[in-house]
């Protein structure tokens, strides 16, 4: 009963506060989002669609999906491995390891891109070696993948670590004493216990992988039709005063974001249930 009364706005002041919050939200989120779609359709849906059908736009979409398709699974595997080792084992340097996982959260994406140029660029540490062997990393797909991997590194691991720490390793120990081998234990006990958190982490890293601008911008070289991902393509079009094209492409990204949001909300609903079930356990 008490929580019910506490949740109901009690006075005019409370209503005003809620209204202020909602207007702020409308101003900084809904208005810009609406602007994107309105600008995209400023010269009609025909113009917007033709901007998306342009070969450069299509190759940007393909590149974005390819980068995400490479990065997200790698990230999921790394995240699981990292969370597994942190949550189920004690080792020296665990604190440092956790800090390192968080590092991409705190450094600027530009730096995350720049490090690869410093390593693999023409004047970088391995630049002459790579040039000699005709391997292209920077200004090519490998560079985009590396930059995206670095930026999205913490997402899955950060989702999984607290959950797996909370769950402990008793269930795995039980499985082992009941005769299960390492892989059987992993696939029949560990993975099912974290599947929703894992999916949630994958979704978050996917959203970031597709939307990343800063890091990717540094390593891309902006070669139209070759190394431009969707966010970079938007920038190029905008700089060329092709507003309809820029906003049409941007609305594609915004649409992806909205889909992610819907999936995320659905998962949170599911995942919250799982979590509270595990707490009751």
């Amino acid at each position: 009963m008490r929580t019910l009364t506490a949740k109901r706005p009690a006075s005019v002041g409370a209503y005003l506060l809620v209204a202020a919050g909602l207007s702020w939200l409308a101003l900084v989120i809904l208005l810009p989002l609406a602007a994107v779609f309105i600008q995209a359709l400023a010269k009609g849906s025909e113009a917007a669609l033709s901007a998306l059908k342009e070969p450069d736009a299509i190759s940007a979409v393909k590149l974005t999906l390819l980068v995400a398709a490479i990065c997200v699974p790698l990230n999921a595997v790394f995240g699981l491995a990292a969370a597994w080792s942190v949550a189920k084992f004690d080792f020296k340097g665990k604190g440092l390891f956790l800090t390192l996982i968080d590092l991409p959260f705190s450094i600027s994406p530009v730096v995350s891109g720049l490090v690869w140029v410093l390593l693999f660029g023409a004047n970088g540490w391995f630049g002459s070696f790579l040039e000699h062997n005709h391997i292209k990393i920077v200004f090519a797909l490998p560079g985009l993948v590396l930059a995206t991997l670095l930026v999205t590194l913490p997402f899955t691991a950060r989702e999984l670590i607290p959950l797996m720490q909370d769950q402990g390793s008793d269930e795995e120990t039980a499985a082992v004493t009941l005769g299960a081998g390492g892989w059987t234990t992993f696939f029949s006990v560990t993975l099912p216990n974290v599947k929703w958190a894992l999916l949630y982490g994958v979704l978050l890293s996917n959203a970031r992988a597709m939307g990343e601008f800063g890091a990717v911008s540094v390593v891309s070289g902006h070669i139209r039709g070759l190394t431009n991902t969707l966010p970079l393509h938007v920038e190029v079009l905008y700089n060329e005063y092709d507003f309809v094209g820029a906003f049409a492409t941007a609305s594609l990204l915004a649409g992806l974001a909205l889909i992610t949001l819907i999936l995320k909300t659905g998962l949170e609903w599911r995942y919250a249930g799982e979590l509270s079930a595990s707490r009751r356990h």
Partner: protein
Amino acid sequence: MSLKVENLAKQYGRTAALNGVSLQAAKGEFLALLGPSGSGKTTLLRAIAGLEQPDTGTVEFEGEDFLKQTPRERRVGLVFQHYALFRHMTVEKNVAYGLNVRPGHSRPPKAEVKDRVAKLLELVQLDGLEKRYPAQLSGGQRQRVALARALAIEPRMLLLDEPFGALDAKVRKDLRRQLRAIHERAGVTTIFVTHDQDEAMDLADRVVVLNGGRIEQIGSPGELASAPASAFVFEFLGDCARLKGRVDGSCIRFDGFEAPIVNAGRATGEAEALFRPWETELDLEGKPGVPVTVHDILAKGAVLRAECRSDDGRLFEAEFSRDHLPPAARPGGRASLRPRRVFVF
């Protein structure tokens, strides 16, 4: 002897969790490892189960060198304090797990698995709950599922790590009785860890008392009660009080009175006597004994317990059956307190 543990030692950093532990268990025996937290009892259990590798020593089971085997090769059933049930599996799947993960050729057919699960759930009185998830069960039910799951692999030994630690008193007692009955029916050598002396004395054929990584005493509950090997064992098994005196043969002399020593011959000269509240008498003031003030009379089950303090503030307790409360036991009154018999270590 089916289990033979010899000279087991295990060090964690600078602290010794186990320090030269040796014990044996006969086939079908029910053994309790009793001790306070940090006494090494759980480490010992985990070493037997294969979850912990001791630094030195041997663990043999029916002539096999257990330390060379992985936990799955040892085939021991383990029950945890916090159940460790697989939360995403139904009760049925939990119990069947050990059978279903067996490699193809030794995995029993589906119908047989189902049959065995049903029998086990009947044994732990959980039939009808096959389709429930662990989160939908009470603590006592969960621990019974864990027990059935451990028994499903037909373990060569059953190991329980504080199995009733997370349950409330009533459920605890019910489960104790059930465990005893299941042990009698299954006949499997069982070792369980507990810090509750009542539980150990109530359940086990023999009790191993551990302290600081060493064994203080191994004996039947009767032996432990009548012939405790050390002051630690005596104190751990129940409430007691201490009193300084002078040993004289099979007696110990205090200030103006004396008491017989149960375990005479261990100490001479100045010594400290230990005695139980139920072996303590209260007499009228002025009679031989320690002068005390009676503070309170508490009802403790079938007995009444008089809480007394000596003039220098030490606490003494004396227990009486309800209809034999001595006249001296009045709250606020003065009395003379005297042990009927004592132990000296």
